[in-house]
């Protein structure tokens, strides 16, 4: 498999990986898994003043999935909460040069983020 340098770099650094477990307020999280696709992902978002302040993720997946999680975290950080609705994995696919056969895996990231939105304990303080 030949990976775009965009993928390679994000997969290798994975700067925003790891849980947010500082116990502070404003934390929402959501996860998704698909055994057939062999992917699991969890996002944690710290919201403050209606904006996405910090994003962290854990992921079990192929390099494209890992890189897409990193890109997603990167993209969301600093944006208003509404950005969650604007995020497009098709856009991510294009930017990172991910082969289209892997779109299914990437869409699972959208599912995990949707789960974040649905959280009843979501607090915006």
């Amino acid at each position: 498999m030949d990976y775009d340098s965009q993928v390679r770099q994000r997969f290798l650094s994975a700067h925003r990986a790891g849980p947010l477990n500082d116990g502070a307020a404003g934390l929402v999280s959501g996860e998704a898994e698909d055994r057939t696709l062999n992917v699991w992902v969890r996002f944690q978002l710290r919201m403050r003043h209606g904006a996405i302040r910090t994003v962290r993720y854990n992921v079990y997946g192929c390099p494209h999935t890992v890189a897409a999680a990193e890109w997603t975290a990167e993209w969301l950080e600093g944006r208003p909460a509404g950005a969650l609705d604007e995020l497009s994995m098709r856009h991510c696919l294009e930017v990172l040069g991910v082969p289209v056969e892997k779109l299914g895996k990437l869409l699972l990231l959208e599912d995990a983020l949707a789960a974040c939105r649905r959280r009843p304990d979501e607090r915006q303080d």
Partner: protein
Amino acid sequence: MTHPEIYLDYAATTPVDPRVIEAMVECLGPEGDSANPSSSHAPGRRARERVEEARAQIARRVGAAPETIRFTSGATESDNLALLGIMEANRHRGRHLITSRLEHKAVLDAASALQAQGFEVSFTEHDADGVISPDAVEACIRDDTVLVSIMHVNNETGVLQDIAAIGERCRQRGVLLHADAAQSTGKVPLQLDDWPVDLASLTAHKTYGPMGIGAIYIRKGVNVQPLIHGGEQEGGLRPGTLATHQIVGFGEAMELADPDLESPRLAERRDRLWNGLSAIGGVRLNGHPTQRSPHVLNVTFPGVQAESLQLAVSEVAVSTGSACNSDVPEPSHVLSAMGLSDALAAATLRFSVGRFTTESEIDHVVERMQAEVARLRNLARGAPDWTAA
């Protein structure tokens, strides 16, 4: 990541030994033998002699008479010739073929092609270590069984089948045996004429010879239908101009490939690698722990995707052990047949060592694999159990 590349994919193909290259270049060059070995003039006859010398070298290495060795383009073609050619030539004897689910795609797909033509195929049982017992083979034999095709050394796991014992049962029941020995040469000894084996597939490029040349061993008296027609080469069994330089390289490679000399060194490297990798928690070795060729190590790293591990340690060339031609890798049919879940199969790498593998390469690989498995497992912290089971 500026470490020089480390090649641990000798089971996919080996670099060509410099002595083999030298022999090939000598053959190709101005003082070489570049005429058509089928031509009746003097340069043609000299080329023919080179071909026959190489045939003798190969025959010696596999314990066979030269006239049992026919050149093909590689083991894929030899496997096809064995299966299609034997079943076609023996239609009057029956239409039943036995093979296993652990075979190379060349055998499995040839078997499917036969099924599409109305032949019947049975698959033998094997144990969780990927070993096929002679009893399991015998249990499949029917009155209309013509051929059993069981590989000698498995290309994914390195498991070595007791082909001589399997052959005994075939003999007793009057059934022919084909053994895919593509991975065997230079690693484990072959004594084809002495063993109860009727056909065997060989290839040069797994043993420091060139890609694109192989052979089929056909025991004297065994009748095979050709796949390709047109010309008298190889007794009419495999027409087409003989590629002298390729055959010379194949011969030289076999001359050099003495398992008695090479295997202990390969086993040492492989054991050093396994010692290092097994220190990583929870990894598992696939295939029988001792009944194996010394060059292959098939390791599952639960909780880590092999594709990711491969990219993380990209200076090391290893195989994900699955059909790697497609962009979305499928789980290896061999590992699946051995009972691994899709997730575990996708968490598996095949390491294969060879003539040029050094201790310090092994040590680098171990260190890097330890670090990256830890990193990727950390990345996947919190993942559900199925990802590691």
